[in-house]
């Protein structure tokens, strides 16, 4: 054993009796963060540089942008589509009014109160007055498709108005509904006029009643308008989908990542350089940030696209009203803060479980199978959330919203829809936080035991035993 002495004396032995245990603990903690940071940066970069990430993000952005343009596009198309209507009036003025003027008002005003007259090229109906002598020519035109509808207004023996409606497609479609409503009112006006009511009295009769609807949840919502509630509902649904799909996609990515490191056998080296806890946390945070990056890119392009809608509508249609209105500026800062908290904690809770499951699998092909129970839990939470949006005030929703695996989605929906008080949100966050810490800790034990297991799938008992085995 004395054959060879080390040629070079060792200068700084990192391990030395003189090291103070407190220093050791401190450096260990410092190293934990340093290693988690190194690992998460590696995980993050390895994933965002992949082609599949870039492609899927681009596709998602396109989908979001296109779908936020859809209402505007539909409106633009429908505004460009004019129904050509020829009217033969054989009655003279009806109820003291020219029938053509009435129809123009009734059919081409966008809104009954304070609407703009769009009788120009943007009008939905292009109305032309025709002479009774032209009837046959016009019928021919309808048959050929040059004219959409020929309307003849006449009176029967009783003096009631009769409308002769000649069209290729019959009385169907939204356009005809509007037309038949206008004609019904015209006929009523005429009858009332003939029975001796003044124009003023008739106008009074047709003034719509004032209806004010207040639901229990409206009261709870703290005076939110119907528009705000609609926006909240859509926001809640949207965020539920974001939360669910991020957890699902990136949870699976975490499990696959853990299994992949085992398949590559890099795990053996990693585990000697870092602790299983560092490996797991680095992986969860790194992949979580990849998800967050994608969601941020997609969400900000979605927000930008929907903020662009009003200027675009104004430019294209000359007005910005009508169509589906989602005013995203109505989303409160509180809701966003809660979303961020639930997003992070919810992801961490599920991610810890996905990591633990992934660490127990030794082949990539087995990952999906092993994840089935977790996927059920995740999809279950999603289904519950979607159902609960219809009955947000139900007791079962309230109860389930405190169950940590459902909290991120359910409590968030309740808060956004005004069915929960802020302190309920806070309480659920505390419960969720405690569970997240417990599950992260438990998962890191499983991870520690799992990463060196190869071959046959261990039984639950074996996993449990290994979790409590001695180790770093």
């Amino acid at each position, binding site marked *: *054993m004395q*054959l*060879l*002495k*080390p*040629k*070079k*004396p*060792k200068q700084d*032995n*990192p*391990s*030395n*009796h003189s*090291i103070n245990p407190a220093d*050791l603990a401190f450096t260990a903690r410092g*190293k934990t963060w*340093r*290693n988690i940071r*190194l*690992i998460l940066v*590696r995980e993050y970069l*390895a994933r965002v540089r992949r082609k599949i990430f870039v492609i899927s993000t681009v596709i998602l952005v396109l989908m979001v942008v296109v779908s936020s343009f859809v209402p505007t596009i539909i409106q633009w198309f429908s505004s460009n589509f004019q129904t050509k209507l020829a009217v033969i009036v054989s009655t003279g003025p009806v109820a003291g009014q020219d029938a053509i003027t009435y129809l123009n008002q009734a059919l081409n005003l966008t809104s009954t109160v304070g609407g703009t007259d769009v009788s120009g090229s943007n009008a939905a109906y292009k109305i032309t007055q025709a002479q009774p002598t032209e009837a046959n020519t016009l019928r021919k035109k309808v048959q050929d498709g040059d004219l959409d509808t020929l309307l003849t207004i006449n009176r029967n023996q009783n003096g009631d108005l009769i409308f002769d409606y000649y069209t290729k497609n019959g009385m169907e479609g939204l356009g005809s509904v509007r037309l038949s409503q206008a004609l019904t009112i015209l006929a009523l006006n005429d009858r009332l006029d003939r029975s001796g009511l003044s124009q003023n009295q008739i106008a009074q009769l047709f003034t719509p009643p004032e209806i004010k609807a207040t639901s229990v949840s409206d009261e709870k919502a703290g005076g939110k308008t119907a528009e705000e509630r609609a926006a909240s509902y859509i926001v809640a649904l949207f965020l539920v989908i974001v939360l669910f799909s991020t957890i699902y996609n990136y949870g699976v990515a975490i499990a696959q990542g853990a299994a992949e490191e085992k398949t*590559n*056998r*890099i*795990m*053996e*080296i*990693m*585990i*000697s*350089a*870092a602790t299983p806890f560092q490996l797991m946390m680095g992986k969860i945070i790194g992949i979580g940030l990849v998800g967050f990056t994608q969601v941020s890119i997609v969400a900000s392009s979605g927000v930008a696209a929907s903020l662009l809608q009003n200027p675009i509508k104004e430019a294209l249609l000359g007005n910005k009203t009508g169509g589906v209105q989602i005013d995203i500026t109505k989303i409160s800062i509180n809701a966003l803060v809660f979303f961020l908290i639930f997003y992070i904690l919810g992801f961490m809770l599920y991610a810890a479980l996905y990591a633990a499951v992934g660490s127990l699998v030794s082949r990539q092909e087995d990952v999906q199978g092993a994840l089935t129970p977790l996927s059920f839990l995740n999809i279950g939470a999603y289904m519950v959330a979607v159902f609960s949006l219809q009955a947000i005030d139900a007791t079962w929703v309230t109860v389930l919203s405190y169950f940590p695996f459902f909290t991120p989605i359910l409590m968030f929906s309740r808060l956004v829809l005004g069915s929960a008080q802020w302190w309920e949100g806070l309480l659920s966050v505390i419960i969720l936080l405690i569970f997240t810490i417990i599950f992260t800790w438990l998962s890191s034990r499983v991870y520690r035991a799992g990463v*060196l*297991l*190869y*071959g*046959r799938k*261990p039984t639950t008992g*074996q996993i449990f*035993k290994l979790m409590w*085995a*001695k*180790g*770093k």
Partner: protein
Amino acid sequence: MSLLLEQVSKAFTNVQAVDHLSLEVGQGHIFGFLGPNGAGKTTTIRMILDIIRPDAGQITWNGVTVGEVSRRAWGYLPEERGLYPKMAVDEQLIFLARLYGIPKAQAVKDLNEWLERFQITENRKKKVEELSKGNQQKIQFLATILHDPDILIMDEPFTGLDPVNVNLLKSAFLEMHQRGKTIIFSTHQMEQVEELCEEIAIIDKGKIVVGGSLRQVKRSSGRKLLRLALDNDPVIAWLDQMSGVKVTKRRQDYVEMELSTPVLPEEVLQAALHQGGSVTRFEVVEPSLSDIFIERVGGITNGQAIAAPEQADFVQTLG
């Protein structure tokens, strides 16, 4: 100043992987760790690296429990090689070195030197999966040593290497030795051990069968072997009739025999000359490590299958 294992034991669900194992590796020495498959080599190595902890006993490096020794002190080449296949060579190696606590600038500098030395600089931006097997092995070796560890632990480092790479690895071994690193490696290949190791231990079923310096181990067999070659009589059939001589090997180039105490090597030489043989080889040798290995381990297992197939059971892998 040494790595010390004292009465270390580790059991898995149904296997006693390591059983009251004690050994010492002097600082700066090259230590060969031998044993059949499933003998407990990998488990011992993992315990030295603090990847798993012993049920009983303790492992210290210069008096400090291995769990408290900085990770930077250890370089590990696992039996199952592995790197991130889709990561570039330089990024991967710098990442691992930084994980061990080397500042980035230092890691880059050292990496440049090593890539130069191994003549793989042109591959530094390539993904690991794009490299040839030989180059992957070099990268794997760099991953073990880039952070300049004090102790190198290599599980079967020579397995699967072609002779060129075996030589490259050997020279790297010797260089590490020159730098005063402690090197521990496990292997089946006895030639490498005889060539490189100052100390060895043969283990079987979690216990040390024989250990110490290579010379001690060889002498411990207490046997003397004689090799004789006659140009005009390669078989030397008359040896079988000679009392006190037991032929152990008949090869093309020599015949090896074991002599019982009263018979001296000179007597065999005289007999050969007397028979009119032209002697081309006559030497007294110690038994080869391979002989000792088979004698000790084979003797213990006594014709049973040498070891359970690895990874048949997940706990076996840990053993």
